[in-house]
């Protein structure tokens, strides 16, 4: 990691959607960077803006109905300054994405092998035969049994876990520098989830690609992340190393989320649930969006946006109570 310029950097990203109920402020000024080979987890509950953030990094948001501001730089290029043709080159080749639902990525009418080969041919000037060879290699790499036979399979002929692996193979077809993974194991059974997470971890280590893993599950973050960013109402409320954020969370929402997650040792104890519900994104308060649910709320919380405080251990916390480095 001698290259000081990050592979990806996001500064002041805002995304708002026009909805019949008003303007929904889905992402509200987030900043983060991703180094080469790093795994960053965006952790948050549903509606906190994780998927919108990922789609913004691929420039996949509907241009008509969304308002995007801020800056996204990928491998030195200003993503929102590029012509659409260049963005298409980037997708798949530099940045690639996997989803919770593999059928979002896989085409039901083509075989797995044909889809992977087609992606390779589109991005790289190689022969069809060469692309076919690479497709087989990829299926082996994602540990699909009888890979050769599976090249000829249609997505619906595969089990859930195999489809997930096939989608990962497709995403990795052109050796992207960044993999964006949107809850890729959420719909899977525990045993299969663990298989897919270990696979992703191994592929990441082998290829050195950087990963942004979106999840609502603390366990997925603990199993995969180098760094964790906790999102709430479209903001990153805490960001630091996985150990910092998961073992000694500082932001009241992060603390609350961990306290309400059931784990061993809580039996017969009352769960420390966060009261209330997340805010309406069409009517965010002027102050901290978590304040209405926060046990440590005080006057300052409702006045304006909480400051981003950089603590002594270098983590960043969006809270008036956080203690800045001296």
């Amino acid at each position: 990691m001698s290259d000081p310029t990050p592979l990806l950097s996001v500064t002041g990203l805002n995304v708002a959607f026009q909805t019949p109920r008003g303007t929904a402020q889905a992402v509200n000024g987030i900043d983060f960077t991703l180094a080469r080979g790093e795994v960053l987890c965006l952790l948050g509950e549903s509606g906190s803006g994780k998927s919108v953030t990922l789609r913004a990094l691929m420039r996949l948001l509907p241009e008509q109905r969304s308002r995007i501001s801020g800056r996204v730089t990928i491998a030195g290029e200003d993503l929102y300054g590029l012509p659409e043709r260049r963005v298409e080159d980037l997708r798949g080749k530099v940045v690639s994405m996997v989803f919770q639902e593999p059928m979002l990525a896989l085409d039901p009418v083509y075989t797995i092998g044909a889809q992977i080969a087609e992606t390779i041919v589109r991005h790289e000037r190689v022969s069809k035969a060469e692309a076919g060879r690479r497709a087989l290699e990829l299926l082996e790499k994602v540990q699909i049994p009888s890979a050769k036979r599976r090249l000829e399979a249609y997505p619906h002929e595969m089990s859930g876990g195999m489809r997930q692996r096939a989608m990962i193979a497709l995403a990795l077809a052109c050796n992207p520098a960044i993999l964006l993974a949107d809850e890729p194991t959420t719909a899977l059974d525990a045993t299969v989830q663990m298989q897919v997470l270990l696979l992703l971890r191994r592929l990441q280590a082998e290829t050195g690609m950087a990963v942004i893993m979106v999840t609502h599950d603390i366990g997925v973050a603990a199993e995969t992340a180098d760094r964790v960013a906790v999102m709430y109402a479209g903001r990153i409320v805490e960001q630091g190393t996985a150990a910092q954020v998961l073992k000694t969370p500082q932001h009241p929402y992060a603390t609350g989320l961990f306290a309400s997650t059931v784990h061993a040792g809580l039996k017969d104890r009352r769960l420390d649930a966060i009261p209330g519900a997340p805010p309406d994104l069409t009517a965010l308060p002027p102050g901290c969006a978590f304040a209405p649910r926060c046990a440590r709320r005080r006057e300052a919380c409702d006045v304006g946006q909480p400051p981003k405080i950089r603590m002594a251990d270098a983590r960043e916390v969006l809270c008036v109570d956080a203690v800045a480095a001296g």
Partner: protein
Amino acid sequence: MTVVHTLPPAPDVGGPAEPLLKVEGLTKHFPVRGTGFFAPKLVARAVDGITFSIAKGETLGVVGESGCGKSTTARLLMRLIEPDSGSMIFDGELVGGELSLRDLRRRMQMVFQDSYASLNPRLTIADSLAFAPVVHGIPHGEAMAAAADLLEQVGLDSATVLGRYPHQLSGGQRQRINIARALALHPRLVILDEAVSALDKSVEAQVLNLLVDLKRSFDLTYIFISHDLNVVHYIADRAMVMYLGKIVELGPVDRIYAAPAHPYTRALFSARLSSDPERRTVAVAIEGDPPNPINPPSGCRFRTRCPMAAEVCAAHEPAAIDLGFGHSVACHLHDPASGHAEARAHV
């Protein structure tokens, strides 16, 4: 908490020593068609001869991968589907015999995962909550008053919620309403089928606290079905582990979680995610996806994924072995007489 009952709770017929529910050999096979015109008729052995009982006031957790028959079991217990065979005795009374299905459904209620699909979108919350009591003969005015009271019991403000429609509420609020509706007839047993699984963690914790409170104030017994092993550990007294339509292990959660006896239970538990980034999982416990219950393997159904499988496992189906302390396991490894080379006795 004060409880207003419009319907009196069902009487405790058999006394405290009588299990609330005894299930024996419950079986449901679904006919499924293969693809193609001449495809043979197949059967999915969704639930295949399960026997268990549940004591008054306890919470039985049911775990296992998708397709193992958890929801089918729940629907059989509720008699939303007819079993092919097997019997059910509710508090000493044979279901379908002394106890009519209508009376069973007053005593047993269910909450599903999908909070939205479970509510009629065209009924206000008040009408949804009053519906079953009115059917059971409660005057409309009283049922409405009880609905308001129930909403308060599940932590919702009745004044704002009664007149609303399901789509105007959050998933967490809707699930509270489904719980209130399940309680409207004052049942004794509530089956919760992945009832908190779709909720965000902070809301899930609220609803789990609520379930614990309601169990006490309504004197309930729960069957809690979940794929989340941590949640089952937290809420259940006993756990039942299912694999392809069979019960593979059953016992007190403290014992099962401390020392899982079935190789499948061990595999399932070791697939739990770590919450400590410095102590990550290093190896998978079992390969492959859970198979489906059409043409399940002979003998022990887990043997095709089991690291300990031997010849006997294909030849004979293992019977439940009593390990003491109410803990039982269906695995040849625990039966010295089974012929499995590594079997040992548990004394």
